[in-house]
Structure formats: C-alpha cells, structure tokens
C-alpha cells in the first residue's frame, strides 16, 4: 500500500438495519483516497453517508465490508482507541466534569506522557488556538467558539496522523463561522496534518478544501478540487448541490467531433462542446450556471435563445432574471451590477435573448 495516502477507503460498505426491519446502505461501496497533508471535505445533504464514513475512519463504526487504511495500515476492525486519528465532534463533546487543562491533556495522559510534559504541551496547545491561560476553566464557562477551540486543541495535542472534523462549525453563528473557517484553514497549513472535514455547507467546503468528495445516498458521486467540482460537475446532483444550475432538458440530435447538437423541444437547438460520446436521441441535460448566461448580449458562434422575463430579483451585487423559453424550459440569468447607475437590462414581461458560449455548459445524463 502506497504511503502517500493518509486515509484510503476501499470499496467500503456500511449497512444498518432500519427501524422497519429493512437494510439500508448508509455508505454504499465507497472508494476514496485522501492524500497526506490534504484538507479533504466530505460534502452532502444529511443522510448522504458523510458522517458514517467519518465515523468508520475514527473507528466508532466498523464497516460491513471493504477496507480502511490509515497511513497504509489496515484499520478496518481496529477499535477507536487504538487508531492514530483524533476527532473534533459536532457538539465538541468536551468532558464537562474536567477543567480545560484536564480535557486537553486527556489524550497524552492515556499515552502515559509524564505530567510535566503534559502541562507544558497544554499551554502550547492553548497558545495555538489563541486561548492562553484558560487551563483552570470548566467547559461550561466558555462560549461556543471557545469550546470549539478547546476541542481542537484537545485533538491536535496528540499530533494525530489525521484530524477528523464532524461539522465542527455547525453550532456557531454565521460571523463566527466565517472567522473560524479561515482560522481552521490557516491552522491546518501550519500544523500540516491531514484534515477530513464533514459538512453540508457547500460554500464552506469550497472555501476551505483542497479536495471535496460530494456524497449522496451513500455514494461518492464526484471527488475533486473545488474548482473542478464547480466547473465540471459529473452528475446533475453535483451540479445542483454545489452552487446553482439551470437544467435545460433535451435530446442529442447529432455529434460532430466534440460538438454536440442538442434539441431543446420547443425552445430551439443548442451546440455544446463535450468530450463524451453520445448517441442520437439520447436524453441529456444542458447544465449552465446562471452567471455564465447573459441577457441581450448575443454571442457569435454561441447559443442565443429567445425567451420572456418572468421575474426580476435585485439582490445588491447582482440582479437575477427568471426567463421562460418557448418550450417548457426555464433559466435564471445572473447579471452583475457593475455600473453604479444600475439600470435593469430588462423588465418583467420583456422579450429577451439568453446567450451562452458552446464551452460553458455541461452535458449531463444522470
């Protein structure tokens, strides 16, 4: 097993018995490799299997089938207390009956590190999370953000091979969450430890991660860098879950090299560049981001579709136009409000042209 991977999941299956007596695959034959030193996010809606995956890496759940390697060593059936990983829990799970110091040094104590070294490293860890001198407090006396940092210090003091974070910012308010996002990212770069980060917040995942695995219904749909996932989503679910996407459903009319001709019934014909091979008549979705569409700004050699504005939504930085085409297709167009004397490009009920290049949309079949 190559050692460049901090964690490797090989065809991991986790089944649960549902209250109704059925069998549910919370994680359905997932394979992924997490590189050493990477900030890796597991992203998906609740129930997609991201937390179960994390819990299997931590050792709180054992896989029904498949293998989990940590630093090249198989750990699939090793109990949690023997794994070289540490976890930051969603609700922090600090020990309420212990002081901050006792909490943070718990892992070192279990390893049998001498007392003097423990207390030195606790102060270092508190420095690192910018809460020096908090040793004697009880967790209850700290704010949510402070508890969060103590939980982080308690995990990182053990210098784990991998740090697992289960929606650690979920309980914080928006402003603090944004601050902590940056702080976590900086911290990760400083300590150089592999972070595996579970979140349902796509913006959070895009901001912080080196790579993201988008999960749904127990499957890892796409694994890649934020840019790759945003610009080249592999499935309709990924395109829809990450950011906003217009889906124009139609069928393939012909393919000439990399140029695919798609018939959007009633709306018109569009040409889209794609490296994939399609068969004539195959049902496809033209997936286009709202910011990649423009209004009344025809593109030569691009696609220009006629439609009618149904709604105009002004949101400060941008204005969103909801356009309905002749067929049943609808699209949302985002125009940035660059000029100060912002003027609506179109009003509700206006006939408009929606344009996009041949390269900007994706052709998705599933």
């Amino acid at each position, binding site marked *: 097993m190559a050692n460049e991977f901090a964690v490797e999941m090989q065809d991991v299956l986790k089944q649960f018995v549902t209250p109704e007596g059925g069998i549910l695959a919370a994680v359905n034959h997932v394979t992924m490799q997490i590189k050493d030193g990477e900030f890796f996010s597991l992203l998906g809606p609740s129930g997609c299997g991201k937390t179960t995956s994390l819990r299997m890496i931590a*050792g*709180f759940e054992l896989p029904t089938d498949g293998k989990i390697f940590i630093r090249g060593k198989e750990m699939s059936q090793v109990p949690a207390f023997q794994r070289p990983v540490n976890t930051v829990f969603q*609700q922090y*799970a600090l020990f309420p009956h212990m002081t901050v110091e006792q909490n943070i040094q718990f892992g070192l104590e279990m390893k049998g590190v001498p007392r003097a070294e423990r207390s030195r490293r606790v102060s270092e860890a508190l420095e690192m999370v910018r809460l020096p001198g908090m040793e004697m407090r009880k967790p209850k006396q700290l704010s949510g953000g402070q508890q969060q940092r103590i939980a982080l210090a308690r995990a990182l003091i053990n210098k784990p091979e991998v740090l697992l974070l289960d929606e650690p910012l979920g309980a914080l308010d928006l402003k603090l969450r944004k601050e902590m996002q940056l702080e976590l990212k900086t911290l990760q770069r400083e300590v150089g430890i592999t972070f595996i980060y579970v979140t349902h917040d796509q913006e959070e995942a895009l901001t912080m991660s080196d790579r993201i695995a988008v999960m749904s219904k127990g499957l890892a749909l796409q694994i890649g860098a934020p840019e790759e996932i945003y610009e080249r989503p592999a499935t309709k679910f990924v395109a829809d879950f990450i950011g906003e996407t217009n889906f124009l459903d139609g069928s393939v009319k012909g393919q000439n090299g990399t140029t695919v001709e798609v018939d959007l019934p009633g709306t018109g014909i569009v040409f889209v560049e794609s490296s994939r091979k399609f068969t004539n008549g195959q049902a496809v979705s033209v997936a286009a981001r709202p910011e990649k569409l423009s209004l009344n700004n025809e593109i030569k050699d691009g696609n220009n579709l006629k439609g009618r504005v149904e709604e105009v939504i002004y949101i400060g930085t941008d204005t969103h136009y909801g356009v309905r085409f002749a067929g049943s297709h609808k699209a949302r167009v985002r125009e940035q409000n660059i000029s100060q004397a912002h003027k609506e490009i179109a009003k509700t009920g206006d006939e408009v042209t929606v344009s996009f290049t041949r390269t900007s949309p994706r052709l998705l079949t599933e």
Partner: protein
Amino acid sequence: MLKFFRGKKGFQLFGLLSPGALWILLFFNLPILIVLFISLVERGRAGGIKLPPEYTIDNYSQFFNACSSQFAGPECDPFLYVGIFGHSVRIGLIVTLWCILLGYPLSYFISKQKQIWRDALMILVIIPFWTNFLVRTYALKQVLATEGLLNSFLMNLNLINQPLDLLFNEFAVVVGLIYGYLPFAILPMYASIEKFDHTLMEAAADLGAPPRRAFWRVMLPMTLPGVVAALVLVFVPVVGAFITPDIMGGGKVEMIGTLINRQFGVARNWPFGSSMSLILMLLVLIGVVLYFRSSTEETRRAM
C-alpha cells in the same frame, strides 16, 4: 424571611404554604421533640414513661454500656448495643454495595434501549412497588425456605443432596433487603445514566482510552450523582430496617430496627427505644452532612 409574606401576593403565598408547613410541624417536628423528651426520662413499669417524669441520661449511657442497666446480668457484654449498631451499618453497606453493583449495569442497559423499551423496562422495575412489601418478603421467604422453591429445584436437579440453610440467617436478611431496595438504587442511577451523553465515551475512546479507563474517567464521574443518591436512598432505610430482618432472619439476626421495635413492644422500654432512635437519626444525619460537604453542586441537585 417574614417580608416574603407582606402584601397581597404574600398573603396568598402564606395561604398556600401554611397547610403543608403546619402538617410537617405537627406530625414530624413536634414528634421528634416528644421522642427526645421520652429518651430523657425514666421508663414506666408497663411501657410508656414514669409519671411524674424523672429526668435521666441513663437511656443513653445504657446504649454505650449495656451493663449499666439495672437488669444486667453478671455475664453481660457492655458493647452489646454498639455491636448491633455496627452490625446494622455493615449489613447496610453490603446491601447498598450490591444494589449499586446490580443496579448500575441494569440502568445502563435500560438507558441504551429505544424509548418504548426503556419505558416498558422501567415499568417492570417499578411494578413490584405496587405489591405490598410484606407480601413480597413472605414470598421470598417461601423461595428460600428449607422445603422451598430454590431448594426443591436444586435437589431435583441433583445438584445438592440435602437442603441448604438459606433462611433465618444474615444471608437471608441481606438477600431480602437487596430484593426490597434494588428499585431505590435503580431509579436515581437510571436518571443519571439516561442523561449521560454517550458521545463523551466516543470522545474518550478517540483520545486513546480503552473502554475500562473511559468508564472510570468519564462515565462514572459523570453519573456519580445518581450513584450517591442511590447510596443514600438505600443505606438510610436499610440500616433502620426491621420488617425484613424480622421475617427473613426469624429473630436470629438483630439489627437496629428490630432492637428499637422490641423496646416499644415486648421490652416495654420506650425511653431506651427513643434514645436509640435519636442515635440512629444522628448517625444518618452525620453521614448526610459529610456527604453534602464533600459533594458538588451537581450531586446535590441529583438528590
């Protein structure tokens, strides 16, 4: 304190509180003073007290030196009563320990079930309360008797040749007391364990604690309030118990409760019974005060 009762609100408060306060005053506090009074006077010939009352502290000195009694024979043991007290405390500790050892895992098991099962199992724990205590104790006596259920069962299986002496000894009393007081241990411990957040055990394991260490360092300290409550709720009544030692011990096992009971019955020595009641109360009071002194805010609230 009196300014509480000023004004209209205060008047209503006074109206609401006084029946309960009066009840406690009349039927709990005042009787203790009566007991104190009786313990300080000489006994009457046929029970009750000698009239007009003659004050004495003999009833207390008799407790610490049994030979100081005018009825003491030549071979008397001066520490007879102190010894019985010590014996009761020992039985109390054994019973309490077993109730906690048996009740804790059971409470843990119940707390881990689904809501509907938890409720059902807790009802099963409580149901015995609805049967009269005396009936239950007599039933248990039938189980342990020489010709009883347990002995017949073991004999039929040829595990034993002759019946075991399971009744009318300390073993029987201890079993009877554990049987009677186990629910009192389960209820407070269950309340504590049910509130315990099991994620903390995952956190401990995550930080490298094997299950046993995680239990001692995290789960037990966090559920200790329930354990201490169980300790007090079982120990206090068990030390003073008299029905169970009477029935299960068949008059052969003497405890404080049976001793006091006898002073108001056949011995017709009310003052000595009263003095021992107060000594027992003092003993329990000292225990509880020591406990409150050493306990934290949280433990106290669990009571």
